[in-house]
């Protein structure tokens, strides 16, 4: 696989849009629903996952020629767990408040199916550079997904965005948005929106081909 620019871009955009982990593949729902009460939590969770994803896909890809298939899952898990531990320490060093807000979900990145899925389906079959680009795309896609939820939930649930007050002091917070049901409602609304976009695109395409047939 050559690393020509347009191909690399396609590889990257694959995860960001076409195969977006949150809205298209519906993967990694546990952190998606649990930590998106504010935009800053969502971004930190997304970036942590992206970092683990890129680093572990790179290492998996480098070791792909020396990994016997019988032990590949064990190897992947060890590699992923290592980077999760490193990220866990890094977040503790950056901010304890953030670490408390994300809770167990940092450690739970180990069992996030996006990462194991990427390692098994892509990194194990491709050289390090494309594997890392693909992983970066997936990571960015996941971050966008989390951010989409986090922004809506923070605005309605607290009247703020990234901690900046939007509506002044009199804002009535929608308590439900920072509770678990709010996560489900907002996720459902976003999924509805994206499937509506998809439907509209399909309809336009089919009507375009119909016209072409008539002509």
């Amino acid at each position, binding site marked *: 696989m050559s690393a020509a620019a347009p191909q690399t871009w396609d590889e990257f955009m694959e995860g960001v849009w076409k195969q977006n982990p949150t809205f298209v593949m519906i993967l990694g729902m546990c952190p998606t629903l649990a930590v998106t009460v504010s935009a800053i939590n969502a971004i930190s969770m997304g970036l942590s996952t992206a970092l683990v994803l890129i680093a572990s896909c790179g290492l998996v890809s480098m070791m792909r020629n020396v990994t016997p298939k019988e032990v590949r899952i064990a190897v992947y898990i060890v590699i992923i767990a290592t980077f999760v531990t490193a990220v866990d320490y890094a977040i503790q*060093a950056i901010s304890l408040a953030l670490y408390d807000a994300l809770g167990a979900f940092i450690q739970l990145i180990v069992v996030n199916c996006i990462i194991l899925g990427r390692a098994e389906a892509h990194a194990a079959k491709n050289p390090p550079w494309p594997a890392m680009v693909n992983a970066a795309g997936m990571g960015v896609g996941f971050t966008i997904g989390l951010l989409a939820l986090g922004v809506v939930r923070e605005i309605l649930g607290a009247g703020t965005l990234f901690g900046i007050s939007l509506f002044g002091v009199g804002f009535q917070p929608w308590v439900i948005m920072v509770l678990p049901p709010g996560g489900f409602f907002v996720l459902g609304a976003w999924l509805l929106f994206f499937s509506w976009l998809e439907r509209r695109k399909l309809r336009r395409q089919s009507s375009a081909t119909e016209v072409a047939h008539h002509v």
Partner: protein
Amino acid sequence: MSEPSSTEKKVIPIAVAAPEAAVPESPAGPMIRTLGLVSAICGLIIVGAYQGTYDAVAANKRIATERAVFKVLPKAKSIGEFVAAPGGGIARVGAGETAIPPGAVKFFAAWDEAGKLAGIAAEGGAKGYADTVRIMFGYQPDCQCVVGIGVVSMRETPGIGDKILTDKEFLANFNALDAKLKEDLSALANEVKAVKHGTKSGAWQVDAIAGATITSRAVGKAINDTAQALLPRLVPNLDKLGSKS
């Protein structure tokens, strides 16, 4: 490693139960070698990350604890961590020690600028509406009273239970909440307890927030439980904390 190309292409779908017998098994040697290599690399990465972040993490934790203690004891300038052993007597916890003996109660002594004891801070927890409410409270030996509370962690309903953070009337309970010991120093003279809104009659009672009685009760119980366990051991030894050592 003998047949890298055959291991690379073949992907077995997980859903298929029976493995295909045709694929040759890899020999044990390369497997062990690979696992050893992976473990070595990963071990190095983890040790590197731990060493690299150790100082920052420790500093963060210290700052967080200090901030919590300073919030309930505004006059404090420096703190030290102690444990009160079950049989009586207190001992300072050295830096880096995390294990506390069973039955012992952890607390913080805080000193003001001159090195005089500014108060004691201790943590307590009790079941609230949704989950355990953990609070830190400050204790002032001079007046034998609780002088301030801060919430360490809680998951109470936003807008109702979390009023314990903001409700001015409720927080006024802890300006000087009576926590005197009995004459023989065996237990509190009056149990610290949350009572229904508007019925507070003694200096040891906590006037609950209307509509958030359960959470208020949890705060009262958390203070009471910890104070009952800690104060009888602490008060006879107060002079040991007299100045910053």
